[in-house]
């Protein structure tokens, strides 16, 4: 039901071209399976970063527990996937993971989003830790610390691409709707927003829940690609990894998150054997960005701000 204007058709063509190029490179083995992992990581991180950006960058709610939602998606997805062991099962797993994460997001969001700034950050961190400990202790379901092995791999380039593009489109659509504007107004000035008729709690929870939903999708995709998950993978360090991407790309820029996800995935691949060095670089990156360029790469700009095609009103929408 989209309006078929010049801009949308062009976007569609670009989307298809990117898909085709990578697909061809993969099938012909030009991109080795080693780099395929990098591509998978990029896609999953894009989904994670953009969904976190929605909560922290656009709505201004500092969440340090995003990895918790990813883990819910990963476990729910893996369990359904392992049970059904088919493409349908894989997709059902993704749906299960996303919905489970969404529900938990709403449940967690309602009480904690009353908190502000630092307190909210620590509360979300605490929530993610509680989720991790719960998964660690639910031995019958999650196999505890040992984790789940042998998760059937159905995630491939096609699925990754489809879900990444869908996420980008959905979140972009959300931001550019009235509900999205309500969320952004909360970031700008919460008191003014509330005085203008915005139920700030409702929209904070909405953004949080939507963010959780997509993090759940990312988690399910992750578990069906990497065969194996355990609770430690989704701890505080993972939440930090995602935060670094969002901050680096720009809190409030979807394009920024995409670019940052790609750049940082490349760095991670290069520094694969030097994980401490990578974390030191991440740390220095966080500090330098905050000190010298707090808006990150793109601030709140999007790629469409650089290419003004179509008419002006299309750009503003």
């Amino acid at each position: 039901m989209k309006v078929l204007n010049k801009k949308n058709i062009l976007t569609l063509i670009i989307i298809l071209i990117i898909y085709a190029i990578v697909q061809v490179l993969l099938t012909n083995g030009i991109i080795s399976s080693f780099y395929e992992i990098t591509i998978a990581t990029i896609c999953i991180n894009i989904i994670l970063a953009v969904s976190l950006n929605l909560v922290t960058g656009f709505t201004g709610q500092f969440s340090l527990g995003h990895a918790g939602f990813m883990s819910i998606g990963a476990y729910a997805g893996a369990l359904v996937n392992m049970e059904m062991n088919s493409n349908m099962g894989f997709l059902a797993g993704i749906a299960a993971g996303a919905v489970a994460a969404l529900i938990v997001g709403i449940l967690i969001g309602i009480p904690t989003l009353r908190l502000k700034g630092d307190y909210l950050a620590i509360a979300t961190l605490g929530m993610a830790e509680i989720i991790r400990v719960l998964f660690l202790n639910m031995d019958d379901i999650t196999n505890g610390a040992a984790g789940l092995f042998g998760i059937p791999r159905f995630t491939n380039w096609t699925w990754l691409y489809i879900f990444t593009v869908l996420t980008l489109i959905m979140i972009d659509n959300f931001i550019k709707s009235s509900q999205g504007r309500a969320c952004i107004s909360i970031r700008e000035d919460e008191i003014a927003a509330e005085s203008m008729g915005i139920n700030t709690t409702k929209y904070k929870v909405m953004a949080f829940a939507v963010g959780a939903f997509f993090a759940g999708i990312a988690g399910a995709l992750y578990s069906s690609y990497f065969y194996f998950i355990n609770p430690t993978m989704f701890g505080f360090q993972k939440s930090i990894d995602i935060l670094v991407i969002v901050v680096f790309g720009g809190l409030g820029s979807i394009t920024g998150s995409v670019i940052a996800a790609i750049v940082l995935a490349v760095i991670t691949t290069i520094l694969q054997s030097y994980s401490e060095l990578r974390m030191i670089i991440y740390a220095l990156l966080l500090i330098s960005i905050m000190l010298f360029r707090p808006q990150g790469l793109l601030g709140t700009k999007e790629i469409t701000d650089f290419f003004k095609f179509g008419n002006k009103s299309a750009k503003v929408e």
Partner: protein
Amino acid sequence: MLTWFYSYMRRCDLEQFSQQIVNGISLGSIYALVALGYTMVYGIIKLINFAHGDVYMVGAYVGFAVTTFAGIGFIPALITSMAACAILGMTIEKVAYKPLRNSTRIAVLITAIGVSLLLEYGMMYFVGAQVRSYPKLLSEEVLTIGSVIIKMQQIYIVITVLVLMVILQYVVKRTKVGKAMRAVSADKDAAQLMGIKIDNTISFTFAIGSALAGAGGVLVGIYYNSIDPLMGTMPGLKAFVAAVFGGIGSIPGAMIGGLSIGMLETFVAGYGSSKLRDAAVFAFLIFVLLLKPSGLLGRDTKEKV
């Protein structure tokens, strides 16, 4: 929850209870030490110093280094570590937090996370991730009252913490710098207008807070006999919970909070499950934040519209 309570009551023989109290007090006094740093820094610049737990870790390593390689004893090691951490804390403040004094809270928080990561992985990179043990510094003796075991080390910990706290109270209540700290905590602009040098006062606050954390690190290193670069994360967060519970910005609050969290954790581990100890502290934090975010002794601040 009810069955847990019931089984707790059944096993509630006085001696096991007393044992938990003993363990809780020694753990709690360490949390109190670290919580003090959080609360003082938050009181003065409204920042949750995420890197504070890692200063504690550095303190533990400094203590390890001087006792292992220079062979000095407990008190000199403690003092060295406290001095080193004071310098570290002041440096971090000058380099990473001071430039952001007028930025959003999120910006400073992100920077603090960055500093924390830098300390952790920097230590890992340069010193290695493996666990180290302290040489034998304090007596290994054990006191037994009935079947309650009190280690001499635990007594040393509590005594050291008490001494440090008395010194801290003296500094805060009786010295000029202490007064300046209290003034800046209450109203930064007014304090500045009264001629108080804000920068120095803030530096001093960081120095004291970090020194106390360093002391905590050494004590923990001796007691648990193992240190590693990531040892600061959990205790740091738990000390933060302690500071919030006691009332962030309140020094007596940090002390009460520290003891409370130490008790909570020990009792959960002792009567419940050791695996749940971390989650219990976090659940408690969320409970406090939702019910009374200003904690036991903290103040409520509202934004002017």
